[in-house]
């Protein structure tokens, strides 16, 4: 916005210099070692997802029957499955599926929840009452049941899985954001914005939403972890991503169950990937909450 201005705003030195990125990361690691560990998991996962094609010579989908069920060795670090596909390759490509679905569903759900929650607090009255009772109804269902119900109605497929995961997130985020926004509603700048003639939409999106970023970001990271887990559950139950797309949940069914004793690597590695990813995102979210909430911040 101001960045595009033709007035040369950038030329003057700003005395309020921000510390260098490196310094900030270092201090973050010191204060939040677990959060930093979570952050590393997140970064590694993103890296794996982005460069899966360069990190492994194998094809995640093509069968190679001569390599069926080989145990982990030099050629296949995590072994191969019943179709001779390299597990490591499928775990790396699986990160892509998991991250894609996780990020899209989490950001969609959190953003819609943000708008709904702020609007609910801003308008108040009957609107708030109705929205919050609907939220109550949605919150009464466990996450997995809700997602299953949505997929059962829409049918499987990546797009529908995203919708199925997004839907239960919206009311969760709306409830949390509303409570923060309620306090905001009483602060004079909201009245001031109204007195300046701004529309409801502008006040909600431009003036109130940025002020509830802290709970929003915490919900968002938590949602990514949850979404990855949900996607795995749905895929495992056969209602999510379909074969042969590499997905962690899918890798746990079929051969993994059949050869659980003779070839445990089939289930161990994708299972570890899911655990680590969810754990990583949750740690990251916790650290973020501690950093963004001044009351919890320890000096």
């Amino acid at each position: 916005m101001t960045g595009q201005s033709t007035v040369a705003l950038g030329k003057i030195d700003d005395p309020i210099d921000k510390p260098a990125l490196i310094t900030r990361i270092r201090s973050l690691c010191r204060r939040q070692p677990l959060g930093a560990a979570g952050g590393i998991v997140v970064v590694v996962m993103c890296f794996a997802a982005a460069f899966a094609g360069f990190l492994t010579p194998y094809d995640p989908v093509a069968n190679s029957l001569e390599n069926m069920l080989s145990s982990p060795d030099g050629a296949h670090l995590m072994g191969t499955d019943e179709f001779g596909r390299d597990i490591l390759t499928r775990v790396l490509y699986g990160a892509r599926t998991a991250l894609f679905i996780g990020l899209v569903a989490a950001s969609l759900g959190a953003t819609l929840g943000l708008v709904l929650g702020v609007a609910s607090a801003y308008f108040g009255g009957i609107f708030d009452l109705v929205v919050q009772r609907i939220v109550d109804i949605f919150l009464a269902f466990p996450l997995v049941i809700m997602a299953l119900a949505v997929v059962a109605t829409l049918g499987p497929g990546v797009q529908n899985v995203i919708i199925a995961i997004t839907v239960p997130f919206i009311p969760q985020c709306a409830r949390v954001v509303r409570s923060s926004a309620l306090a905001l509603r009483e602060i004079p700048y909201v009245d001031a914005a109204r007195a300046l003639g701004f529309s409801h939409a502008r006040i909600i999106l431009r003036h109130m939403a940025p002020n509830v970023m802290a709970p929003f970001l915490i919900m968002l990271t938590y949602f990514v972890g949850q979404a990855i887990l949900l996607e795995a559950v749905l895929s495992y139950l056969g209602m999510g991503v379909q074969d042969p797309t590499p997905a962690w949940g899918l890798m746990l069914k079929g051969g993994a169950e059949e050869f659980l004793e003779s070839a445990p690597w089939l289930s161990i590695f994708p299972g570890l990937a899911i655990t680590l990813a969810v754990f990583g995102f949750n740690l990251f979210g916790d650290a973020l909450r501690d950093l963004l909430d001044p009351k919890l911040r320890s000096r």
Partner: protein
Amino acid sequence: MSKLLEVQDLHTRFHTTEGVVRAVDGISYDVSEGETVAIVGESGCGKSVGAMSILRLIPKPPGEIVEGSRILFAGEDLLSMDDDRIRHIRGGQISMVFQEPMTSLNPVLTIGLQLTETMMLHLGLDQAAADRRAIELLEMVGIGEAERRLRQYPHHFSGGMRQRVMIALALSCRPRLIIADEPTTALDVTIQAQILELMRTLTHQMGVALIIITHNLGVVARYAERVIVMYAGKIVETGTAEQIYHRPRHPYTIGLLKSVPRMDMARGKRLQPIEGQPPDLTRLGEGCPYRPRCAWAEDRCERSTPALENVGEGQIAACFNHRALADKESLAV
């Protein structure tokens, strides 16, 4: 001078669990083009609600502006116009300066953004033009290094400077009327004078009418041309600042004046506060609302409410005893 704002029989009520609060109970007044009017009264007398009603900023429910009230701005009824039109008036034609400079600016948006957003909306300026005007405005209200300041956030500013920014914001779209709701209450005394002086200079320069809501009579004497004294949701007296100061005709106005310290007061003399509390606005019965606290209260004050009547030279007061009060010159402090 032509009338810019005409408030006619404004009633604003709040529906609460304890009953209906008649926060503003039938007030009428005019503001002319370029005029400075002060509305005074103690906390809870309806001054702020009356001002917020002008821009229809009363939350509804529980608030309600009663049917039959009219607020004409340049001939147009603000209360009956549609939402788009009133949004156009807010900030564009009439702007407000709020009581709390510390919380009236959005903490997560830069000063520049908050200034330019408003001008882009109401004046249709593009970003570059809005930036230029924002710099001019900040310089006008006495903020140095305006270009750098534009990129800063409200927490980089002190209370007085934020109020200057609020004034810049209020003036940004060349309004015809500014409503300042206790603009200096939260500031240091030295800063108060600067801010008021600034508002007076700028509004005079630009020919903007100003309504100052305050409980500070010192502010009134120095900056207002006309004064409206409110009590319990009603206007009890209006007149020029001169009249209100030197010959008040309502016991409440007299009480207010006596409770303020003055430089010419004898040393050691005690201030005279107004005894008692303002009435509960849910239970206003018949009679003058000021009666329980009034030294001149009589039986008739209990039976009927005195109407506003002309007490000479445009001064209006709502008291049965205004003549008696006029005779006692000593009352006027």
